[in-house]
């Protein structure tokens, strides 16, 4: 009986404990297909009250925006409950991704070897992909697109993503407050490159705002905040415009042809994120995994409790208590967990209600 070796995707996650610290070890690639599994493990640890989490990334060689979104989300939730998240030994490329996306400020990163110089720029673009459909996570990926666009497009001083939701445009991601207010001025005045790109589904490039005539109400507001060039690229889902990726610069004529090409690539990637989100499935698989991992954590706790009972009752050491459980299971054909549960429940029954407190 030799089933075919099965890995459909090259990803493997596992957990271990170092005292109270839960260590999630990731290997392979975290992407749209595998990030739900990563997320499910994370959710489960948090749900079970493990608030000190280490992500061991030594075996991980690729992570896209969906993986980063899981980490960002996990870090935020842990922070709210007073927990901690540490990223351990990322590969140089992933470490660089964490740095340029600002994660190194969000999460403590314990680095491994020296960072290589330029490799990541090429693969930086691969740091987008798609996500599951929840808006929050989607917005996380778009925020990632925005921070990468501001970091990688030469001349960019900030970037944003506008999306049409419920019939009107709104900013779902912006690199800072000035940029968000630039978008807002366009929504208010009803004009600007962002609006036009979102409506017409093509590029709008305001190369020198000082000599711009297309948006008389909006342009002075932009210039008042020091903006001198804007590049808005449409986001398209099934060829329909749904929003725009906007890149702003303090300098006129800031965007070279290469920058514009790069912006187009980012817009295409952001569009792909949106399109994939629209068709994403996988929540079900994620639910099943969560349930299995939850069950596994619960099973461990029962076994640990049973060990405790045996240690106290029979004066055994920890591993001796485990061996006793295991030998019983072996001899009687009872699964070890079942035996552990019997011990724990019979002890509870035997104990007079709260008398020994």
């Amino acid at each position, binding site marked *: *009986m*030799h*089933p075919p*070796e*099965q*890995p459909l995707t090259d990803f*493997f*996650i*596992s*957990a*271990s*404990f170092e005292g109270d610290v839960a*260590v999630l*070890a990731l*290997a392979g690639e975290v992407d749209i297909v595998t990030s739900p599994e990563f997320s499910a493990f994370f959710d489960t640890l948090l749900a079970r009250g493990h608030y000190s989490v280490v992500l*061991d990334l030594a*075996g991980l060689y690729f992570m896209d925006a969906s993986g980063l979104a899981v980490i960002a989300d996990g870090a935020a939730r842990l922070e709210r409950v007073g927990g901690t998240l540490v990223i351990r030994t990322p590969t140089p490329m992933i470490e660089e991704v964490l740095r340029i996306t600002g994660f190194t400020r969000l999460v403590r990163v314990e680095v491994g070897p020296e960072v290589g110089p330029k490799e990541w720029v090429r693969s930086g673009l691969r740091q987008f992909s798609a996500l599951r459909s929840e808006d929050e996570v989607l917005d996380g990926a778009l925020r990632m697109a925005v921070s990468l666009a501001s970091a990688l497009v030469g001349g960019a001083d900030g970037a944003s993503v506008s999306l049409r939701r419920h019939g009107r445009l709104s900013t779902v991601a912006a690199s800072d407050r000035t940029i968000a207010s630039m978008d807002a001025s366009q929504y208010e005045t009803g004009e600007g490159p962002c609006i036009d790109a979102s409506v017409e589904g093509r590029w709008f490039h305001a190369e020198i705002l000082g000599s711009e005539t297309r948006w008389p109400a909006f342009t002075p507001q932009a210039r008042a905040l020091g903006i001198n060039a804007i590049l808005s690229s449409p986001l398209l889902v099934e060829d329909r415009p749904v929003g725009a990726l906007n890149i702003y610069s303090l300098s006129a004529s800031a965007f070279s042809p290469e920058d514009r090409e790069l912006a187009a690539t980012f817009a295409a990637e952001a569009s792909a994120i949106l399109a994939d989100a629209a068709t994403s499935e996988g929540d079900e698989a994620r639910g099943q995994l969560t349930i*299995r*991992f939850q*069950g*596994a954590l619960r*099973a*461990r706790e029962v*076994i*640990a409790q049973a*060990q405790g009972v045996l240690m106290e009752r029979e004066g055994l050491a920890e*591993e*001796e208590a*485990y*061996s006793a459980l*295991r030998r019983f*299971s*072996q001899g009687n*054909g009872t*699964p*070890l*967990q079942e035996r552990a549960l019997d011990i724990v429940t019979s002890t509870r029954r035997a104990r007079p209600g709260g008398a020994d407190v």
Partner: protein
Amino acid sequence: MYEDTVGVLDQFRRDAALSHGELWLRYFELGGMSTGFQLEAYLYGALLPSQHDHNVIAHALNERFSELGGNHPVPYEDD
């Protein structure tokens, strides 16, 4: 023979029709403390598990063989 033990656990895993991930989950369920990588290293003989770890892995495999209607073919280490 020492060489015979290299990869033997992994052969059991394949006979039990478990992926590495599934075996790790079962091992973890039974209280195993090692990560998936460490477990793989044990299976291939690249790392030597502690006696306790070996027995947890053996038991995870044996319970799987029981589910499949078999006996407990994976030997435990004396304790």
